């Protein structure tokens, strides 16, 4: 069966520090991968998605970036964190690749990021 792992579960960082959140998927190949942020008010904002190694699409311009160095690894980074970067970050994967499929997305348990 497929599993998705995110770490760390919680993180407290000072303003201006760098960030690296990691997400890995097991049990499937060539997944689509997604990063979301969920603010305290509950809505989900899609940040990045990737359909293959080195292929990243950004949905929202900001001081975050994403990379996909391996097929089942997705990394969210920042060089300098802002207070507004606080939130709950969720990684997800879906089975489809190449367009047109309607498979659901499957989510990890998230990283709660607090910026001080």
């Amino acid at each position: 069966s497929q599993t998705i792992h995110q770490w760390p579960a919680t993180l407290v960082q000072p303003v201006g520090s760098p960030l690296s959140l990691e997400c890995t998927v097991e049990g499937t190949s060539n997944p689509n991968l997604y990063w979301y942020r969920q603010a305290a008010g509950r809505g989900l904002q899609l940040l990045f998605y990737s359909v293959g190694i080195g292929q990243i699409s950004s949905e929202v311009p900001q001081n975050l970036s994403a990379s996909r160095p391996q097929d089942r690894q997705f990394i969210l980074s920042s060089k300098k964190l802002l207070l507004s970067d606080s939130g709950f970050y969720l990684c997800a994967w879906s089975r489809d690749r190449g367009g047109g499929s309607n498979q659901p997305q499957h989510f990890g348990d998230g990283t709660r990021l607090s910026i001080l």
Partner: protein
Amino acid sequence: AQSVAQPEDQVNVAEGNPLTVKCTYSVSGNPYLFWYVQYPNRGLQFLLKYITGDNLVKGSYGFEAEFNKSQTSFHLKKPSALVSDSALYFCAVRDSSSGGYSTLTFGKGTMLLVSP
């Protein structure tokens, strides 16, 4: 662009009573709709999806959803609520504008509270 609306921030129901969580959608083509549930400090869990076919879709944990094309609705239902159903529920629609890849647009979520 696709969108979904969840008109209720919160739904309260007594255990054993039927529950309904409302969702309406707006799409330019065929609607592909999903329901997810989120428990505190966890990721989203997929409940069910509507792609085509029967208007009543059955999903996990006894949930079902009714697709109504004329009313552009996709309401989540359960005949008998459990206290353990208390959680945050999201409706989502597949966004066909993302070059054919299955990015999702989520509603703002509805908190379901089931009282004993």
